């Protein structure tokens, strides 16, 4: 039984985008030599790209000890004649596998890929780099389970499945792998783009190997100074901005004049007892139970706050739930039923050791004091982390990063997990940076063509302070869905 992983997942994190699922299908080969690189096909990409593997020590202080295989891919530049410095993409989570995001990056980073190779490395513990995944052969019923039923035994069962020395699956070693791939591919310097947790990885990269980096893009920042795990205040802020936007939009305000009260009423109702109804299974069409608890409601709503594509649905989902129609919520859960390609083992291994110990009881209490989910985002950590095997993190890890590398910091004002204040935190200590806040973006600014345009201009000019940001002003706020049959 692995059922609770799914719901635990819904409670997490800094994922790159909540709408992605991918699974690559290239061939795994035996590794006699250190580096392999060959043409291959990745799911969702029509043209051939290059796939490779690199053997690295599991523990860098024991170079002759156990080795693990790091999987990576290179999306070749369309026009390679100018020999421009490649861009390495650092994925979010922690726990997302970069190579599995290849199709998404192939299309959204098209402008950059015109003249720059894009390097994707599966962080150790994800994808095909010694994945820390739990047995997921049985698909659970996402409609019946609720996060409140989570049992510690499942965490213990999962930990028991892992092989290798868990203490080596940390952020610093991940960066050592990334840099080993850079060296193996023969690049003196690279540009890096980190999104979400990828920004944390990028900051660690800046501290460990500043000379290997030509430029850095931090999109939706998870600074060293702000521990990952307390999303109560930030998601409440994001939710309130959504309520404001709805109120200011005439059609939304007409359709949902008392949205805030509707939300409170639903929460009060679910706090008393979870809703338990029979529904047609969204995918199978058979009768099934649907249980909706407070935590399930909140965590699924929070997931919609990440993206400008799903935010427009939130008022309708709340209002319909208020009216006793839970089908819109069922539809949302169906959308993410297949999981989000998150390697939860790595997620917990990193967060429980590198961030969770830094969150004090006062910080948890302060974060829980909000009008959206209260302490809801904490429960996953509070339950799983005490059970998770520990490793020691050096004090250096928590030092603010001061590397003098051209750095572009991007934040979306509507972001529920990495608010603009996070970006300010990193901007304080980096000597050559510029922080751009996009008013009508949520998590990941570079998910829009405009955001990519700015990133592209930056890695061309390396001058973060003189970029053309004008297109961000043209981004529109949410066009809310005001009726079950669509907008007018």
């Amino acid at each position, binding site marked *: 039984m692995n059922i609770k992983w799914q719901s635990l997942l819904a409670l997490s994190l800094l994922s790159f985008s909540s709408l992605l699922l991918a699974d690559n299908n290239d061939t795994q080969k035996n590794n006699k030599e250190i580096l392999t690189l060959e043409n291959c096909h990745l799911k969702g990409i029509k043209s051939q790209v290059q796939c490779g593997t690199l053997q690295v020590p599991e523990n860098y202080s024991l170079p002759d000890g156990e080795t693990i295989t790091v999987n990576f891919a290179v999306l*070749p530049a369309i026009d390679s004649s100018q020999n421009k410095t490649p861009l390495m993409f650092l994925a979010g989570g922690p726990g997302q596998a970069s190579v599995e995001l290849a199709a998404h990056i192939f299309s959204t980073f098209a402008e950059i890929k015109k003249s720059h190779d894009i390097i994707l490395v599966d962080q150790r513990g994800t994808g095909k780099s010694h994945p820390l995944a739990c047995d997921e052969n049985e698909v659970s019923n996402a409609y019946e389970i609720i996060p409140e039923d989570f049992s510690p035994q499942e965490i213990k069962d999962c930990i028991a499945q892992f092989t290798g020395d868990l203490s080596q699956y940390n952020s610093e070693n991940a960066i050592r792998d990334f840099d080993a791939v850079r060296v193996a591919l023969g690049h003196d310097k690279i540009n890096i783009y980190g999104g979400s947790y990828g920004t944390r990885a990028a900051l660690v990269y800046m501290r460990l190997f500043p000379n290997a980096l030509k430029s850095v893009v931090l999109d939706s920042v998870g600074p060293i100074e702000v521990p990952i795990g307390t999303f109560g205040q930030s998601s409440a802020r994001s939710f309130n901005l959504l309520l404001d936007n709805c109120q200011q939009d005439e059609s939304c305000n007409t359709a949902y004049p008392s949205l805030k009260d509707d939300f409170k009423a639903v929460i009060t109702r679910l706090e008393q007892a979870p809703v338990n109804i029979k529904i047609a299974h969204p995918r199978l069409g058979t009768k099934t139970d649907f249980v909706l608890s407070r935590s399930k409601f909140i965590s699924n709503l929070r997931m919609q706050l990440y993206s400008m594509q799903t935010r427009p649905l939130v008022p309708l*989902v709340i209002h*319909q739930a208020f009216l006793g129609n839970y089908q819109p919520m*069922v539809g949302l859960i169906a959308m993410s039923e297949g999981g989000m390609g998150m390697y939860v083992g790595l997620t917990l291994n990193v967060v429980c050791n590198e961030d969770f110990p830094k969150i004090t009881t006062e910080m948890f209490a302060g974060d829980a004091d909000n009008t959206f989910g209260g302490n809801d985002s904490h429960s996953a950590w509070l339950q799983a982390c005490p059970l998770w095997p520990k490793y020691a993190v050096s004090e250096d890890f928590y030092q603010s990063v001061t590397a003098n590398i051209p750095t572009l910091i991007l934040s979306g004002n509507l972001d529920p997990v990495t608010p603009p204040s996070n970006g300010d935190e990193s901007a304080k200590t980096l000597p050559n940076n510029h922080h751009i806040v996009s008013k009508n973006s949520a998590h990941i600014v570079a998910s829009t063509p405009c955001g990519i345009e700015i990133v592209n201009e930056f890695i061309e000019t390396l001058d973060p302070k003189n970029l053309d940001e004008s297109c961000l002003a043209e981004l529109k706020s949410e066009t809310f869905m005001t009726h079950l049959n*669509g907008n*007018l």
Partner: protein
Amino acid sequence: MIQFKALLIKELREAFRDKRALMVALSMGLLAPIMIMVISKTMIKEIVDNPPIYVQFTGAEFAPKLIEKFAVNNILQFANVPEDEKYAWQERNIEVDIPKDFAEKMLAGKAIDVVLRADFGKKASSSPIRRVKEVVREYSLAIGYKRLLVRGVDINLLQPIVLQEQDTALPTSNAVMVSMFLGIYLLMGAFVSGLSIAIDSSAGERERNVLEMLLCQPVSTLKIVLAKMTCASAISVLSIVIMLVLTTVSVGFIDLTKIGATFSLNAFSIAALLLLLIPLCFFATALQLFFSFQAKSFKEAQSTVSMLIMLPAMVPFAIMMIDDKPEWVNWLPISGQSMLMEDVFKGLPVDWAVLASTTAITVAMTVALVLALAHKLKSEKVVMSLS
């Protein structure tokens, strides 16, 4: 050897004397790169850019969100058309009718009939029509997906089969568009550039009675033919080299990455192309000399030989049309070269066996033509144009 050298110098002098004819000979090499650049630019613009489209909307007020969606995709109301484009859009006259019960039917979840009226056969309208259809389809689909989602249906059900396309072309392949044009132009260049010189040095010299003088000299006819062929071929080779060099330069001015493509020829590819094309240049001039010596007059030579240049234009097209090519097509002159060039452009490794055999057959045919011609020139029939 001295005799051959003297003959060749004589031929080259004659060729270079007429500057205008020389310009015509080299024009192919100069014009093809410009043509390639202009055509590619226009095609890219058509594929990638979304120039504004002006549509006559009726009932726009009934579906403001749809009109907004159109506007985002640069499909605008006819009232906004700038003065200088007004005539063109009036001619195209693309109309979209939105019914006044649009809102009512939308909320009721009933199908809404929006009318698109235009002359579907008109070429200038085809791209605008395609774009209007695309926007309506996308808009409609997005609403459909959301309707199902809020009814608790898994929207992935709408995609039972997802076709994953895997293109086996190498990532380093050159833009098909550019390489196709360049391939044809190179073949044409090999055939056309030496043409006027070949005719002039054969049928032309005969009319000017130079040929008679030449044949009276104590030199073998073989040397005469070789000198004439070398001269005309040299001009075609020059033209091809110019074409290759200028194309690699001119393609730099086109942003092919917009269509996900690129074009670059490295020294190796250029060498391989020349290796392929130089024998073909000789073959072409040998063929032209042969036919223009056959002709009774300069004028007749011109028309006969002009027919020959249809070959390089037709053969590649014919090959493109045949999907299952018999193997011997690889070995024939023109078709063999044409197919090998395609491989070079795609960045595939050159099939040296095929290259060697095509070249060998081309050279053999050239030698046969030269020998036959040398033999013919021994008879006074040729001089008297009595063939």
